[in-house]
């Protein structure tokens, strides 16, 4: 380890000594008290709030008042000389001015610059004590004495690795603003409301909730009805509604034993494979999962799907969360370490690594490291150092937000404005990733992974690629023939040589670029060449490769379309890292070594005493050390972070309001003791999520009704339902709506895992041209058969530059930013989608066909449709009204013809060439539609079915379907 890099100003603040001032403070004389107040407060107020106009610039002093010296203050300004009468605050006009008592003299003049009450009080006290104006050395003495006190009325000091200035380093914090950095408390579980015949709360969650509720004078809501509970639990754990049959079975079991029925239900749901599919979606929201890289080219991340399936497996297998963390941040380091042990030398290691000679367990680790490849990134038009910085900044922020609920971006350019996070710590974490390079790596498929549909998929991509290959070849032949002819006409022999040699030939000795091609053809050539790359990348989807990283020097050139481990990786390379002031590469400041967030006061295990938060600067193992520190039992941010998220996904609202930012500017936890208790309990019991689900769902708080007898008062006192006097309802998420419709129609294909599937999306959007660098991205083609299309939404192809309009309309988050909480606003485009779109119309027809199949009479069919969508039987009023509707619709459809839908097998594209501004057109093939198996459409069914489908559509549009209680 290079000790010369260690130039940290470590603070050794003794946190056990003195809390509210030391003993000799009481013995200060009045003059000394005045000096102290001036040194600590008043001097600063003058310089922050007044001197800009009154003294900082000696040539431009406003109102002839100079506040940079006592003499200046005593002399007063142009109009008054009674600003300061030492010992007599009431007569000192200064106090009137800063209190805005005299409308003609209100200082500072801007409302948002006004002094606070406590600042005014400090000035008052200073005058009372005689208004002394100590010299700089004396002031410094008071400042330093003050810094010995950990806690003063201004707040508490937090020991960190140190800011860029002493002012920042010795900044004081309010306890409530640094709650997240404090060690987990071990709160006593409240004893609960005893007496009045109420039992003590069995579940500690209820005890914490009840204690606060009782404080506000509310009773908790009663337990919800069992049919409400099964729907709530099903959506929460598996993201799908219970079937009518499951509801009935549950109701029967409930009659025998409510608690037994409930426990069995939760066990069944947690064991179902759909649990992982539902909860992985939450994780992917935070991790920003997508199958493409976004930005200029939106390049395919061909094997990202393996990471998606890893996350699903991790949830289903109940992988301990600490392991889950380590694998995602350092999986490649672990896999390589294990491989290195098998290899005789570095050469053998490098060879095995390139050929992907990993065990299944090691592959799993490599796939997990795909987390480090989730952010949008494209180095097009960006020089390597900046492209590198964009990547590392993104990863550092992603790791901070995801695992530590800390927005790292906030202290990239300067010490954190609010939190005890020095910019040094940002760059220490940055240094932990400074040797992390992106690469698609070789890694064989595991037995736990699905390679279904590889053959068909590959064949289609190959076909599309061949089409582009042929077109390129034709155009290249044409230009090469024209070039030959150009040379022949001038009697110049055909040049030969390396690329560099060819470039040296004078311009007049070689044929013009793209000679022989029309403008139209030049444009086409560019499009086809780009297509070749696109399909090349997509073919890699079917190769034993993984989107991962490795440790090594930054390659000279970075190109987002192909990132590989180079043949020779300098294993001894050691990146130099600096604090970049203002985040600028061109302004490197102090050197830093890798390290972690010092404000947590969780030291790295086995770290040297002079650098407890340092990781050691070997190139390999930096991330592992960081990951182990994050996953350390003592790390207060980590456990709070995940427990808070899990709580949020059960209750629709987190305990601490900003799951990606626990800093002082974020929302404070509504139940800090409960959060700490849950976090501590979670860690003690092995970081197991399924146990946490059971704990939460077995609470009365989770099982309570969404209705409350005292609703009006709750709305007044606790409008945000922070106290959880009742269960908060929620709208279904985009994926839940789609998956539920498919389950209800019977179309849902529950096959797990594998390469992304392409559901049908709005045809106008699917065929919509989309600009990428130099070209247009190819059209979106849905999977060929309904079985492939009708998989759960988590398996859908996720393109950063082309959101599925259905999912996007229902607030599927933008994959460019980590989503801590989804928007649920009801907007009109949602109505258009559910009422008018092809995809929902198709679902309504599918449901109508299912219902016709399962029941004969119209009334029975209506009943069945309601059962399937609402998991209950219709009321008499509903049945009557819906029957009338279906009959009216039968009349309508009997009179209204329908046209058949055609699918195009190719489209013509027209583009303005980016460089030349000339329009050109070209043909794109859509082979999927050549033998496409469409869903049943309106034209394929009878008027009777269409009428029934109208009813089904209404059910899918209803609030009862869309909301969970």
């Amino acid at each position: 380890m290079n000790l010369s890099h260690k130039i940290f100003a470590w603070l050794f603040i003794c946190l056990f000594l003195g809390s509210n001032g030391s003993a000799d403070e009481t013995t200060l004389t009045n003059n000394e008290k005045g000096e102290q107040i001036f040194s600590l407060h008043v001097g600063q107020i003058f310089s922050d709030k007044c001197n800009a106009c009154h003294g900082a610039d000696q040539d431009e002093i406003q109102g002839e008042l100079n506040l940079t010296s006592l003499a200046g203050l005593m002399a007063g300004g142009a109009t008054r000389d009674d600003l300061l009468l030492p010992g007599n605050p009431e007569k000192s006009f200064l106090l009137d001015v800063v209190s805005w008592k005299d409308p003609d003299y209100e200082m500072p003049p801007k409302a948002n610059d006004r002094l606070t009450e406590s600042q005014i009080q400090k000035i008052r006290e200073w005058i009372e004590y005689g208004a002394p104006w100590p010299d700089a050395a004396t002031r410094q003495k008071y400042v330093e004495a003050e810094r010995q006190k950990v806690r003063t009325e201004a707040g508490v000091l937090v020991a960190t690795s140190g800011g860029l200035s002493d002012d920042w380093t010795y900044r004081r914090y309010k306890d409530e603003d640094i709650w997240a950095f404090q060690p987990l408390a071990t709160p006593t579980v409240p004893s609960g409301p005893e007496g009045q015949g109420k039992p003590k709360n069995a579940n500690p969650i209820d005890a914490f909730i009840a204690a606060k509720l009782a404080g506000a004078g509310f009773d908790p809501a009663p337990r919800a009805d069992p049919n409400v509970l099964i729907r709530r639990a099903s959506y929460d754990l598996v993201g799908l509604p219970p079937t009518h049959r499951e509801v009935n079975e549950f109701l029967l079991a409930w009659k025998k034993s409510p608690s037994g029925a409930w426990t069995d239900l939760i066990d069944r749901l947690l064991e179902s494979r759909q649990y992982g599919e539902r909860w992985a979606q939450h994780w992917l929201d935070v991790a920003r999962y997508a199958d493409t890289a976004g930005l200029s080219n939106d390049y395919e991340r061909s094997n990202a799907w393996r990471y998606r399936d890893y996350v699903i497996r991790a949830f289903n297998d109940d992988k301990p969360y600490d392991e889950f963390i380590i694998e995602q941040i350092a999986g490649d380091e672990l896999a390589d370490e294990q491989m290195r042990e098998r290899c005789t030398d570095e050469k053998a290691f490098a060879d095995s690594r390139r050929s992907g000679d990993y065990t299944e367990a090691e592959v799993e680790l490599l796939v997990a490291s795909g987390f480090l490849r989730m952010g949008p990134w494209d180095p097009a038009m960006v020089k390597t150092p900046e492209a590198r910085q964009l990547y590392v900044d993104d990863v550092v922020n992603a790791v901070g937000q995801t695992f530590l609920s800390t927005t790292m971006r906030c202290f990239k350019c300067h010490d954190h404005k609010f939190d005890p996070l020095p910019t040094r710590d940002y760059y220490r974490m940055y240094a932990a990733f400074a040797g992390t390079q992106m690469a698609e790596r070789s890694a064989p498929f595991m037995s736990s992974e699905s390679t279904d549909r590889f053959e068909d998929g590959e064949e289609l991509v190959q076909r599309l690629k061949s089409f582009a290959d042929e077109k390129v070849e034709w155009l290249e032949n044409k230009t090469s023939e024209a070039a030959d002819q150009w040379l022949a006409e001038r009697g110049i022999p055909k040049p030969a040589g390396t690329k560099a040699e060819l470039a040296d030939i004078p311009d007049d000795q070689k044929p013009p670029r793209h000679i022989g091609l029309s403008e139209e053809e030049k444009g086409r050539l560019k499009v086809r060449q780009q297509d070749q790359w696109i399909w090349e990348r997509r073919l890699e989807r079917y190769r034993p490769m993984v989107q991962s990283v490795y440790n090594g020097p930054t390659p000279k050139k970075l190109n987002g379309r192909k990132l590989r481990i180079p043949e020779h990786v300098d294993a001894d390379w050691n990146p130099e890292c600096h604090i970049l002031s203002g985040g600028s590469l061109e302004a490197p400041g102090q050197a830093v070594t890798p390290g972690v967030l010092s404000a947590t006061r969780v030291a790295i295990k086995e770290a040297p005493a002079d650098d407890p938060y340092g990781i050691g600067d070997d190139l390999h193992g930096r991330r592992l050390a960081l990951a182990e520190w994050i996953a350390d039992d003592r790390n207060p941010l980590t456990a709070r972070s995940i427990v808070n998220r899990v709580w949020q996904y059960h209750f629709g609202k987190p305990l601490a309001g900003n799951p990606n930012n626990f800093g002082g500017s974020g929302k404070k936890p509504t139940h800090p003791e409960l959060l700490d208790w849950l976090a501590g309990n979670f860690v003690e019991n092995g970081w197991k999520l399924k146990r946490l689900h059971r704990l939460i769902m077995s609470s009365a708080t989770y099982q309570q009704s969404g209705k409350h007898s005292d609703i009006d008062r709750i709305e007044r006192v606790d409008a945000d339902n922070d106290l959880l006097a009742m269960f908060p309802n929620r709208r279904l998420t985009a994926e839940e709506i789609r998956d539920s419709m498919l389950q209800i129609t019977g179309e849902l294909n529950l096959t797990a895992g594998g390469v992304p599937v392409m559901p049908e999306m709005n045809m106008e959007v699917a065929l919509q041209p989309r600009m990428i660098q130099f070209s247009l991205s190819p059209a979106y083609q849905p999977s060929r058969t309904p079985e492939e299309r009708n998989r759960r939404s988590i398996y859908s192809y996720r393109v950063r530059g082309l959101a599925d309009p259905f999912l996007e309309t229902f607030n599927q988050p933008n994959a460019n930013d980590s989503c801590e909480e989804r928007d649920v606003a009801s907007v009109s485009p949602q109505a258009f989608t559910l009422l008018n779109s092809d995809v929902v119309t198709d679902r309504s027809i599918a449901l109508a066909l299912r219902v016709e199949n399962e029941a004969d009479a119209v009334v029975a069919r209506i009943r069945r449709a309601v059962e399937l969508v609402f998991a209950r039987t219709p009321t008499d009023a509903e049945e009557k009204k819906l029957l009338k509707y279906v009959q009216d619709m039968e009349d309508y459809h009997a009179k209204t013809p329908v046209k058949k839908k055609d699918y195009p097998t190719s489209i013509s594209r027209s583009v303005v060439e980016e460089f030349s501004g000339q329009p050109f057109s070209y043909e794109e093939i859509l082979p999927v539609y050549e033998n496409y198996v469409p869903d049943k459409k309106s034209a394929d069914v009878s008027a009777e079915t269409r009428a029934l489908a109208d009813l089904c559509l209404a059910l899918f549009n209803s609030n009862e379907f869309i909301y969970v209680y």
Partner: protein
Amino acid sequence: MPTMKICSRPISTASSRREFLYGLGASLGSIAMSSAFAKDINQPLANPLAAKKPMHAAKAKNVILLFMEGGPGHMDTFDPKPKLNELHKTESKNDRGLAAGQYQFYVGSPFKFRKVGKSGIEMCDQWQYMADPEIADELCNYRGCQAESLNHPEALFHMNTGSRLGADPSLGAWATYGLGSLNDNLPGYVVMTELALPQGGSKNWSNGFLPAFHQGTRLRSVGSPILDLKSQPNKSREHQRMALDTIGFLNDQHAARHPKHAELAARMESYELAYRMQMEVPGVVDLQGEPEYIREMYGMNQKETRDFGTQCLMARRLVEKGVRFVQIFSGGWDSHDYLERGHASRIKSVDQPMAALIRDLKQRGMLDDTLVIWTGEFGRTPDNNKRGGVYSIGRGHNIDAMTMVMAGGGVKKGAVVGATDELGAKAVDCVHPIRDFHVTLLHLLGLDDNKLTYFHAGRYKQLSQFGGEVISELIG
């Protein structure tokens, strides 16, 4: 078109309607975040897009942003650089800094420049309609803006959302968040693109972290103007009404079992708005009613100007109807090569329509409070590289200098503000980052960037990210 309410049933039996998703400014931001419960259940449900008073006296009520995707060359449009023509094809000494690297030779503009109008504002000879004194003397050319990202999508995101990351609310979203819309039956923020979406796609008109009401609604030039606006082809408007009534019936039954649940009513209301939009939107996008001389003026009868002209005319109609913010994307400005042909054809495609838009707004008395802005995501370099050994007569991306042209909405008339150096490499006078342009735009709309904030992910966020200053030189 009068906004008839064809509502055959009362909107909802759940009378507890209130605003619960919308809050203006910092103090209400947290309410907006917590959509589950509101402060007062008995307040009537406010339309989240209802028109609001500006924070200070506004100069502009509406904005029409003409976005030239790809980055027009300032020295080939509105910012003449005779020195460049002297240096044409000589070795470039222009240092572009660490991130961008070096270009090989200077490129003079293929176009001649002249002063036009009484104001003597400069533009190249490709601008013919814009050069009409009546139009030229309305213009304010700003030459001091600087961008930050060399890449199209990041630069587009930055100009459109104030952030390079592509996840923040766009200008139009902030404008409707601050001011609401003036028409209950139309979206407050409308976007029109070419057939191909610009790089970065819909994230350029995203609501970001603002509630979804503020998302730009894309009016599509081909097919359905709004996605799924029309019923399925076999379903009539009467059919739609009956469907809505049936859904309403189901929702009323449901609401009776779940009283005090305001989202239910709000969601039903969003269906009724959708129904009204189905009526209103086709009328706005149907240009058949526009007289022939207007269509002619906008260039709708010529191939080169038809698309942009149609969109400009649509923009005027939308603003007339009370749409707050209209944005039109027009691509193809990325002339790395074939500069003369490329820029000439791009200028031709926007020259007549843009001039017509300004003239039309003026003759209707709408220009005073409608701000028209013409800009790209960055400017272009004075120099370029050889490609395959051959001089490419084009330009690279330049983040240090660009040009914007504005009209109406309270900006100076016939004015040139700021300057670039003699080669157009860098802005040197009245230099401001994009955020200051954004703050100025809000200021003209009567909004204060420091007060127009929204609580998200632990802090109050604003368009400028961390504050900026008003470019007072632009304001008339």
